[in-house]
Each structure stands twice: as C-alpha cells, then as structure tokens.
C-alpha cells in the first residue's frame, strides 16, 4: 500500500543508518538556514533585541552593500584570501612530504612525531606576541601564525593517511622489485593521496580561524582587521556581516575542495 511505503520513507530519516534522497537533504538543510534567518529577523524587528547587540538582517545587508560598493569589502576579502592561500600553501608543501616520511619510516617517526605532538598542544594564540616580535605585523607574521596552527596538525594527519596504506600494497611493490623510492612514488603516495586531500580540506578550515585571529590582533587590512575596527566604533552590523562572509568563504572553499576530490579521485568513492 502506498501509505505504508510513505511511512517507511519518513521513518528512515530517524533510523540509525537510514538513507536520504538528495532533494530531501537539500530541503532540510536549507530549511534550517531559513529558520535561523527568520528567528534573527523576528528578534530584531520586534525590538526584542536592541540593534546595538544584534542588528537586523536588513541593516547588515545594507552595510555590506555599501562596503562592497566602495570597494572596502573586496579589498578585505582579497588581502585575507591572499594571506590564507599563501600561508596554507607554505604549511602544506612542507607538511605533506614530511608527513609521508614520518608515516613510512620509523626513524622519522621517532625523530619528529613526539616533537610534533608536543608543539601542537601549545596554544597558537600564545605565539602571537612572539611572532609580532620576530617578524613585525606584516603578511609574514600572518603566514607564520597560519603555519604554526596548521603545519603540526597536518604532518600528524598525513602520517596517519600514509599508515593506512594497506600492508599488502607495500608487499606487492616489494615482490615486484620496486626500489624504496619507487615504492614511495608509485604505491605509497598515490594510495594515500585521497586521504591527504581530505586532510588538506579539513586543515584549510582551521587555517581560516588562525588567519582571522592574527588579523584581529595586529593588522591594518583584512577581514579580521575590519572586525576589530568595527568593534571599536560599536558597528555591530559590520561585525556580523563580516562573520557571515567568513562563514560563506569557508563553506565555498570546502565545497570546491570536495568537488575537486570527486574529480581527482573518482575511484576513492565508497572506499574510505
């Protein structure tokens, strides 16, 4: 009976390991965004929350539109994007090969893994004054903070990706007479690559946080800098608007990397 089918479908949403269609998924997730937006709108237009604490969606939008029109917003997005891409690339280019070494060779694991574990528990924020002392308040200091915040996490995660390469893959390479270097380049790295890409995607999200932290404390441009300035003048519309922009930038970059993953590693689907 069609009725019972419907009830099964509906129940699947609240069953452990249940399935969901693409449309229902989109509808539910967009619904949650919409609900929060309505709550925000209702709370502000009804006067329940003073505009100083939480400005209305309309005023935030108007402010963002004005900042976009005079180029401030695009300047801030541009400089922050440059900093995060550069800082993240420096960290990743160093972390991937080192992580592969730690994951493959016990010497490098003994030498670097405990050290990385030790450093990654040091709060990145505590390095802020030191990094300013060492490198000033320019872009280099932003790169350094992003690097400290992501590099040590990345090498441990890449190490883990490499350790997950099936032992028999390595056994296969050996029985085919591959040299140590060939084994790394032809079997270990390609096999770990989808996992490494995932690591990069996740750590890129963290890099946004470290960038904004660095810009909040010492900068004269960028998204974080604008938030600090807005706080000084109680411009909560700018603060909220910029926080939302950061959320959108994070979401977009994450989706782009996920889409690239599907293009680059179509075979990895359903394997991990």
């Amino acid at each position: 009976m069609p009725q019972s089918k419907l009830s099964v479908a509906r129940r699947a949403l609240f069953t452990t390991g249940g399935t969901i269609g693409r449309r229902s998924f989109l509808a539910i997730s967009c619904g949650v965004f919409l609900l929060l937006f309505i709550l925000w709108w209702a709370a502000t237009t009804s006067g329940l929350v003073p505009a100083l604490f939480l400005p209305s969606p309309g005023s935030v939008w108007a402010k963002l539109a004005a900042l976009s029109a005079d180029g401030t917003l695009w300047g801030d997005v541009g400089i922050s994007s440059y900093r995060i891409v550069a800082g993240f690339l420096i960290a990743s280019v160093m972390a991937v090969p080192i992580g592969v070494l730690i994951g493959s060779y016990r010497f490098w694991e003994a030498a670097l893994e405990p050290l990385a574990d030790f450093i990654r528990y040091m709060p990145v924020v505590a390095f802020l004054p030191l990094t300013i002392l060492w490198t000033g308040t320019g872009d280099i200091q932003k790169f350094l903070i992003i690097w400290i915040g992501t590099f040590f996490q990345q090498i441990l995660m890449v190490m883990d990706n490499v350790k997950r390469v099936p032992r028999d893959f390595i056994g296969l390479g050996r029985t085919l007479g591959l040299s140590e270097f060939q084994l790394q380049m032809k079997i270990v790295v390609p096999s770990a690559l989808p996992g490494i890409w995932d690591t990069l995607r996740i750590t890129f999200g963290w890099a946004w946080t470290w960038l904004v932290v660095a810009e909040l404390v010492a900068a004269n441009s960028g998204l974080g800098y604008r938030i600090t300035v807005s706080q000084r003048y109680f411009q909560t519309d700018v603060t909220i608007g910029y926080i939302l922009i950061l959320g959108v930038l994070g979401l977009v970059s994450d989706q782009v990397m996920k889409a690239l993953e599907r293009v680059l590693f179509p075979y990895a689907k359903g394997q991990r």
Partner: protein
Amino acid sequence: MTAKLEIKSLGKRFARNEALRDVNLSLAENEFVSLVGVSGCGKSTLLSIVAGLLDYEAGDILVDGAPMEGPGLDRGVVFQSYTLLPWLTARGNVEFALRAAGYKTKECREIAEKHLALVRLSKFMDAYPHELSGGMKQRVAIARALSYRPKVLLMDEPFGALDAMTRHEMQLLLTSVWEAHKLTVLFVTHDVEEAVYLSDRIVAMTLGPGRIKAEFKVDLPRPRPASIIATSEFQALQQQVLATIREDIVAEEV
C-alpha cells in the same frame, strides 16, 4: 633435476614465540603444492618468508638453485586481500607489474591483454577495481602475478575472502590455467577440499611450533573436471588429510 623452490631447515621466531621449526620442503618444476593446517600453524608465515617479505633466523631458501635474497620478480605473489591498486584499471594493474619487470610499453599492453583474456576478463580490461566483484579482482591479481613469468607462484589463501560459489569457480579457473600453462605453485589454504582438488601434493602443518607433520601425494588424474570431487578416491584422500588436521584441533581444545 634441481628443485624450483627449496626450503631447508627453516626456523622463525616472533619475539618469544617459535613460529616455525626445522621446515624442509622442496617443489619440483611445475609442481602444485598446497600447505594446509589449522590457523596459527605458520603456513602463511612460511609463504611470506618465501616471498621475501618476512625475516627468518635459521635455514636456507633456494629459488631455482640460487639463494633467495629478499623479495623479487622470480616469485609472484597473490595475496588474500585483493591488492589491486584502486587508481589503475584492471589492465593498468597488470601493466604496472610488467613495467616494474622492465617490459617495454607496447609489450606491456599486449601481454596484459593476453593474461586478462586468460582469466576471462577481456570485457573488463578498462574497469576500475571498485567496479569489479571480489572474484574478478582476484582474477586480475592472478593475471598480474602470471604476466611477468615468475619461476614460482605463491598464493596466500587467495580465495579465502570469496563466497562458496565464486570460490568454486575460481578453483576451476585456476586448475584450467595451471594445466594449460604449467607453473610451480605454492598454495596456502585452510580448505582441504580446495587443496585436494588443486594440488599434486599436500603438505599438512601442525602448530606449537609450526612444522611439517605429514605429506600426501594427490594421484588424481588430470585434467580434473569439477565432478572429480564426488569420486571415492577424492573423498578418501580428503578425509585422510582432514583427520590429520583434526588431531591438532582436538589437541588445542583439551
């Protein structure tokens, strides 16, 4: 005639555990030998050592008369897990091995296609491993191991992860490939029926420490049709091997 593979008084320890003691075994050219025994008897350990993937403390291993020095292309290995590289197609996986063995690109393609046809996968040459069933993946692995003409083929419970039907199909396929192409094979399994069906000789191992307990010559005629399983000679031998292994199971339970 010198033996293709010769194992002389091999000994192996894992920390305080003696895994193998004084194992002596030699395989003649084109002989198909199965190693059977309860889990923990060291049959897979022995195979890994012969493959050059595990160290050992005592004894000698000779491949075609020459001392074995680590893993190499003179021994092909088929693992229980499907070790197909997921980023390469079936053909790509076979070509990967051929390139490692030093064949030229053009030869690789030809030889790969020939061997995939041998395991009846011509239609799936361009399929990726995630598009293949377990049995198909293992057929690619067999084609890959055969393609570069190793002197000895080592198979570690290659059909252990397959369902009963597929397993049976694979046994028929392996027998027909072996009968047509003759090759020295060392085959590890815990399935006695499989061992009797495939082998010229069965070596039963026992545990604590792992060592050879008994050998059985399989005098069944070749080619062997699937129906041979129902003959009394087959069944008698199967029962005999099973009885030898069962002693270990009982001993373990006591």
